[in-house]
C-alpha cells in the first residue's frame, strides 16, 4: 500500500536511510568528514568493538554518510544491506575475496568488462583463485564448469561489449542447485531499470561511478546482499558458518541469519583490504541517486531515439541494442528488461578503422573518453583506443569491428544528439 510505511521506488531514492539530522536539523544528508567517532565511555567503546552495539568507530569500517548510501542502494535493489567501496572494482574484489581463497574457483561470463576480466583471469589467479569463463547464454556451460572448489558464479546483467542479457533466473537456478551464490554486476542496469535480486541473484554490485552517481564526478562501488542465500545450508562457506579467529571466534551465520555475508565482508574485507569509500564521494553519489528515476527515464528515451536513427542510417551496418528484434538477447530483454536495456550500446560503422576515427573527431556534443553512465553523452572507438594494439582478426575475436563505436547516451536533447551523430556519420562517409 502506498505511503510512508511502504514507499515506492522514487520515494526510497530520496528518503531511504536518511531523516533530518537530529543534531542540526539539516534536511540534506550531512557529509561526515571525520575519520573517527568519540566513544561515550570505555564501556561504550568496548561494546562497539565487540559488536554488542551498532555504531561507527572508524571511517574505513563505516561512516554515517556512507551508511546512508549503503542503506539507500540496498533499499532500491531489494537487499538487506550494502557496503560502499572505493570503486566498482573494489566491490567485485570484496565479494570474491569474502567467499573465495587460494584453491577456490569462480565460474564467470566471458562477456565481462575488461577490468573485471583482468581481475579474475590474471590478478586473482596469482593469488590462487582460478576462473572458468563461459558464454553467458549457454546455461549448460555454466553448469558444466562448476567444480567442487567453485565458490560463486558471476556475470553482468548486460554483457560487454554485445549487451548479452544475462538470464538471471536460469543461471541463479544453476548456481542454487549446486549450493552456490550468483553475483551480478548491474552497473549498466541501475535498479530503476532492473533489480537482479527479484530474479534470483544473491549478490549485486555497481560501479556507482556510472549511473548511480550519474554526473561523471566520482569513483565508487556498492555491493548489495539479497539476504536470500543460506550460507550455512550450502556447506561450502566455512568462512561464514564456522568460527572466525580474526573476530573473537565469531560465527557470522549465527550472528545474522540474513546478513552474515555483509558482516564478514565489512569486518574482514573492508577492515583488512581497506578499499573504503570517502564520505564526500558517498554524498555525491547520494545526490545522483536522488534524481535516478528521472534521469534513467530520460536516458532510456534518448537511447531509444538514437538507436532508431542509427538502425535506419545507411552508414550503419549494425546496432547492438537488445530491444531491436535482430539482437541475440531480444526475447530475454523483452522478458527481463521491459523498462529499457540501459543507455550504453555499440554500433558498427560501415567502413575502415580510419573512418571510425573520422566519425569520433567530427562529434561535438559526444565526449571522447573512457567512461559510461554520465549525464553527458560519451563515445569511444575501441579500435583506435582501448584495443588499438589488436589487428582486425584479433578485434573480431573480441566481438569488435574496426568501425565499432560505443556510445553512452546522456540527458541532452535527443534532437541535438541525433544531429551530432548524423553530422559525424557524414564525416565518416567522406573519409572513405
Amino acid at each position: 500500500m502506498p505511503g510512508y510505511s511502504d514507499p515506492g521506488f522514487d520515494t526510497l531514492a530520496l528518503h531511504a536511510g536518511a531523516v533530518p539530522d537530529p543534531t542540526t536539523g539539516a534536511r540534506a544528508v550531512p557529509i561526515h568528514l571525520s575519520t573517527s567517532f568519540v566513544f561515550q565511555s570505555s564501556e561504550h567503546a568496548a561494546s562497539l568493538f565487540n559488536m554488542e552495539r551498532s555504531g561507527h568507530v572508524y571511517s574505513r569500517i563505516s561512516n554515517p554518510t556512507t551508511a546512508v548510501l549503503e542503506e539507500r542502494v540496498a533499499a532500491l535493489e531489494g537487499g538487506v544491506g550494502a557496503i560502499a567501496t572505493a570503486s566498482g572494482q573494489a566491490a567485485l574484489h570484496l565479494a570474491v575475496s569474502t567467499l573465495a581463497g587460494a584453491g577456490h574457483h569462480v565460474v564467470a561470463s566471458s562477456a565481462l568488462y575488461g577490468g573485471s576480466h583482468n581481475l579474475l583471469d590474471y590478478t586473482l589467479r596469482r593469488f590462487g583463485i582460478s576462473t572458468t569463463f563461459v558464454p553467458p547464454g549457454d546455461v549448460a556451460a555454466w553448469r558444466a564448469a562448476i567444480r567442487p572448489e567453485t565458490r560463486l558464479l558471476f556475470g553482468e546483467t548486460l554483457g560487454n561489449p554485445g549487451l548479452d542479457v544475462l538470464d538471471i533466473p536460469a543461471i541463479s537456478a544453476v548456481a542454487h542447485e549446486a549450493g552456490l551464490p550468483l553475483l551480478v554486476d548491474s552497473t549498466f542496469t541501475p535498479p530503476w531499470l532492473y533489480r537482479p535480486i527479484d530474479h534470483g541473484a544473491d549478490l549485486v554490485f555497481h560501479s556507482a561511478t556510472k549511473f548511480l552517481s550519474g554526473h561523471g564526478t566520482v569513483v565508487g562501488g556498492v555491493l548489495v546482499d539479497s539476504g536470500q542465500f543460506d550460507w550455512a545450508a550450502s556447506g561450502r562457506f566455512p568462512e561464514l558458518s564456522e568460527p572466525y579467529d580474526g573476530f573473537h571466534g565469531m560465527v557470522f551465520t549465527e550472528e545474522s541469519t540474513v546478513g552474515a555475508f555483509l558482516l564478514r565482508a565489512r569486518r574482514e574485507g573492508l577492515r583488512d583490504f581497506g578499499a573504503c569509500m570517502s564520505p564526500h564521494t558517498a554524498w555525491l553519489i547520494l545526490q545522483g541517486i536522488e534524481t535516478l528515476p528521472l534521469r534513467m527515464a530520460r536516458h532510456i528515451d534518448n537511447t531509444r531515439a538514437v538507436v532508431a536513427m542509427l538502425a535506419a542510417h545507411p552508414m550503419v551496418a549494425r546496432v547492438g541494442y537488445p530491444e531491436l528484434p535482430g539482437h541475440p538477447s531480444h526475447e530475454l530483454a523483452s522478458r527481463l528488461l521491459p523498462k529499457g536495456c540501459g543507455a550504453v550500446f555499440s554500433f558498427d560503422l560501415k567502413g575502415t578503422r580510419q573512418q571510425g576515427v573520422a566519425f569520433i573527431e567530427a562529434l561535438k556534443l559526444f565526449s571522447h573518453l573512457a567512461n559510461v553512465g554520465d549525464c553527458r553523452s560519451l563515445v569511444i572507438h575501441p579500435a583506435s583506443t582501448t584495443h588499438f594494439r589488436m589487428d582486425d582478426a584479433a578485434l573480431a575475436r573480441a566481438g569488435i569491428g574496426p568501425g565499432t563505436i560505443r556510445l553512452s547516451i546522456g540527458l541532452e536533447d535527443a534532437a541535438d544528439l541525433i544531429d551530432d551523430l548524423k553530422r559525424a556519420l557524414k564525416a565518416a562517409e567522406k573519409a572513405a
Partner: protein
Amino acid sequence: MKLTVEGASAYAYTGGKAFDATLPCVVFVHGALHDHSVWTLLARWFANHGHAVLAVDLPGHGQSEGPARGSVEALADWILALLDAAGVQQSGQVRVVGHSMGSLIGLEMAARAPQRIGHLAMVGTAYPMKVSAALLDTARQAPFKAIDMVNAFSISTLAAKPSYPGPGMWLHGSNRALMRRVLQGKLATGCEVNLFHHDFSVCDRYANGHEAAQQVQCPVTLILGQQDQMTSPKATADLAARLKARTVMLASGHSLQAEAPDELLAALRQALA
C-alpha cells in the same frame, strides 16, 4: 548451542560466549516468523556482562527442529524444558525477555514457573494479541504477500540509526528477508505447516493472559514502541495494571530491537539490574 528438548534438536544463541549455567541467565524469546538473530546485539552485551544467555530458536524456527508448537502455553513449556536441558538452576535466576509473540510466551513461563523467573520484560507486546481475519486469511493463502504487509507495519522509519546489527543494513529489507527465510526454511523440510499462519494464529488464539498475570510473582517491565502499529501501546494498559508492570516507551515501531537497539539495551539494563 545445540540442545535436545522434548526429543528434538534445539538451538540457542549464547551471545558469542560459552554458556555458563552458574551465571544469572537471560532468555530471549523471538516473535512470529523470526529467529534468535533479532536479539544478537543485546545477547552479546548481556553475555559479556556477567550473564548466561540463551536466545532461542523456537521449535520449527531457524535451527530448531519442529514440530512448531500450537499454543503459547506449549511454547512456554518447551522453553522451560530447554532451561532444564541447559542445566539452568530452578530458583529465581532466570530473566525472560520476549518480543511480540515471544512476550506472551514469557508471560506464560512466568506464570507456570513463578519460582524460576526473576524478571519478565515484555517488548512490543499487547494482550489480547488479536490478528485481523484479513491478515490471517492472507497469511494462509499468500504468505509472502502477508510478509510484505507485516513488514510495512513493523518498522516505523526509513532511517533507524544505528542500523541493526551494524551500519549499512536496511531494516525493511533485512526483516523481510528474515521472515521469508524462516518461512522457506520450514517449507524446505517438507513440512506442510505454513509457519506464518501458524505463528499468527498462536498469537490470535492466546486467551490465558489474565489468568497467567495472576500467577506471575516477579517484577515485570513492558517496553513499548510509541509508533508500534502491530501491537499498539494502547492495548497494554489493562495488562500492565494486572501485572503491576513498569512501562517504558521508546521512539520506535514494533521492531524495537532493530529500530532502537541502544534505547532497548538501556531499558533492559535498568529492568534486569
